[in-house]
């Protein structure tokens, strides 16, 4: 269902000055901060809880609940903003950082105030030079205007917001890896338990890690109230959400839609969104929530963009990345490309992921190149099973973080639906092997 829900986080995107302090202030900017300072930290946290704002980074954990996991009376607490957007198909946090950096900063201030953080770190992906510049400018202006830093707007609330940035590593989007990176280390995830960041995170202190889009919602929630936010969307998916629709569609784009009620069909086919499949071809498959998500097909088009529904249907909305593949798509090639990504980005800490993803890539590569063996499909499933026992959804894992199991998703999907394509590729390879001229084998056996 397409609704006329307000645009909450992309409301300024059409303005040329959306990234400036003047543009932000002219459109209600930093009014939520003023309101919050008069409410007190607990009331702000309550509004966010009432809103039932689900984290927009991938896992979809309620932000208000996450804040509450910090152990009582343990200080200091830190806030870390995850702006390391790099899940294939995902394009939203970069837009929020480039086009409306003050909205994010105000969100950081509101969260810091509610949680009790005196220092926050805004970690931007290394490759995003413009986002870093826009946030640096916005922070410099916001400090000068008294919105950030010591005794904010004359109150007793003080917080430093430090812009920091990475240097190219997908895994750093995982929150414990991000904390390692922020401590100046190799970005390898920590074993959880015991190191759940809310209890022991940055410098082993309670640390809340929130995604950029999650925090960008806070100014609207504080201004309009948690109930107004919760009035939008479905019971388990409130508010609005940004979805990037890419691949074989007529009008690829990033769209903010009402969460929980808009369907995949709306998003992919409606003229105001992606506008249908390129060349009006048939749909082959689509990835509903980034490269880690199992693929969906024609029969899933009428599912709403709603967390629980999509989880139950065997995939996830993840980071709001919908990648559309039309009927001309080569399933082996697409599957290989996604698996290769995880093989390249494995941090190497856990053996099943480090070795397994590499082997999955090698096997798929030889199938793709015409050297596949009849035993390869079983081998793919066997290696997958060693990374993610049972190959179920949600995935079980033999690894510290979900990167390894993520490489299993495209294989499980493609093999379930397009196994004949893999078999045909292998059969061709077999035929080629057996059609080697007799003279050639003779000659080569003589060395």
């Amino acid at each position, binding site marked *: 269902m397409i609704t006329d829900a307000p645009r909450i986080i992309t409301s300024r995107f059409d303005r040329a000055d959306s990234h400036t302090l003047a543009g932000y202030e002219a459109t209600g900017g930093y009014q939520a901060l003023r309101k919050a300072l008069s409410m007190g930290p607990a009331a702000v946290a309550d509004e966010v809880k009432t809103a039932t704002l689900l984290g927009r980074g991938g896992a979809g954990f309620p932000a208000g609940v996450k804040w509450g996991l910090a152990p*009582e009376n343990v*200080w200091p607490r830190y806030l870390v903003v995850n702006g390391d957007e790099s899940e294939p198909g995902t394009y939203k946090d970069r837009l929020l950082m480039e086009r409306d950096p003050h909205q994010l900063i105000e969100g950081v201030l509101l969260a810091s105030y509610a949680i*009790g953080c*005196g220092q926050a770190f805004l970690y931007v992906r290394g490759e995003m030079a413009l986002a*870093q510049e826009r*946030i640096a400018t916005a922070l410099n202006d916001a400090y000068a205007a008294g919105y950030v830093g010591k005794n904010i707007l004359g109150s007793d609330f003080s917080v430093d917001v430090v812009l920091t940035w990475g240097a190219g590593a997908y895994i750093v989007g995982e929150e414990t890896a991000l904390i390692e990176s922020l401590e*100046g280390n190799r970005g390898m995830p920590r074993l959880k338990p015991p190191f759940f960041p809310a209890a022991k995170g940055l410098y082993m202190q309670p640390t809340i890690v929130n995604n950029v889009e999650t925090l960008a919602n806070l100014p609207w929630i504080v201004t309009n109230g948690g109930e107004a936010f919760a009035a939008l969307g479905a019971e388990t998916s409130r508010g609005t959400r940004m979805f990037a*629709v890419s691949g*074989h569609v007529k009008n690829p784009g990033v769209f903010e839609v009402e969460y929980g009620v808009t369907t995949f069909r709306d998003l992919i086919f409606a003229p105001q969104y992606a506008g249908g499949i390129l060349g009006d071809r048939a749909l082959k498959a689509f990835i509903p929530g980034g490269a880690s998500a199992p693929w969906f097909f024609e029969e899933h088009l009428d599912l709403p963009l709603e967390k629980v529904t999509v989880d139950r249907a065997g995939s996830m909305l993840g980071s709001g990345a919908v*990648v559309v593949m039309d009927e001309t798509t080569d399933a082996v090639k697409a599957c290989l490309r996604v698996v290769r990504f995880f093989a390249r980005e494995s941090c190497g800490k856990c053996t099943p992921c480090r070795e397994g993803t590499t082997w999955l890539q090698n096997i798929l590569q030889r199938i793709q190149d015409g050297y596949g063996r009849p035993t390869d499909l079983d081998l793919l499933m066997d290696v997958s099973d060693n990374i993610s026992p049972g190959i179920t959804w949600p995935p079980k894992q033999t690894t510290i973080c979900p990167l390894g199991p993520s490489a299993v998703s495209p294989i499980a999907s493609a093999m379930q639906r397009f196994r004949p394509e893999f078999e045909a590729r292998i059969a061709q390879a077999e035929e080629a092997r057996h059609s080697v001229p007799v003279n050639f084998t003779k000659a080569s056996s003589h060395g």
Partner: protein
Amino acid sequence: MARLTNDNVELAREIIGRYPRPKSALIPLLHLAQEQDGHLTDEAMAHIAELVSVSSAEVLGTASFYEMFKMEPVGRYMVNICTNISCQLRGGEELLAHAEKTLGIRPGQTTSDGLFTLEDVECIAACTEAPCLQVNYRYEHRISNEGFDQLMNDLRDGRRSDIPPHGVLAEIRQHIPADRRAGNVTPEDTVIPVWVAAAGEGEK
């Protein structure tokens, strides 16, 4: 160039000063060294090790994990073409093949004139604008073969002054004015924040 220049040491100290623990400044400092020299030299990494009081091995350990840090000289322009799924579906691999052919190099290699280094990269978060690429981490959206050729020519002929040489990332830096700073919060600062205490939420 080897160690950080005096100006960069001053910048480095300002950056280190923004973190409760000096080692947290490591990645930004490595970027600063790469901005100075175009790649990371052993001398610069040793200098950074001194500045944040860790061993050179620890600095190398961190640096070698991250793809953006180059231990060898690279071209003035790093041309990163995305071939991940969204770009693959819209011609990213064909674009890469075109780039290889016209530049005469394979991913990871640098043209003999030292201008271009080509890379076959993972998703750079411009999926709806596929195929896409970055030159020194500045985006080019929905780029055709002709558009690519034009871009290379513009870079060769110095018509893209908006793209700084490799190593320069953000050209605007954060500066926190001394009179506005709240100050670092270290793990040793175990007192309850004043605004939380004032709200009577000490028991929360």
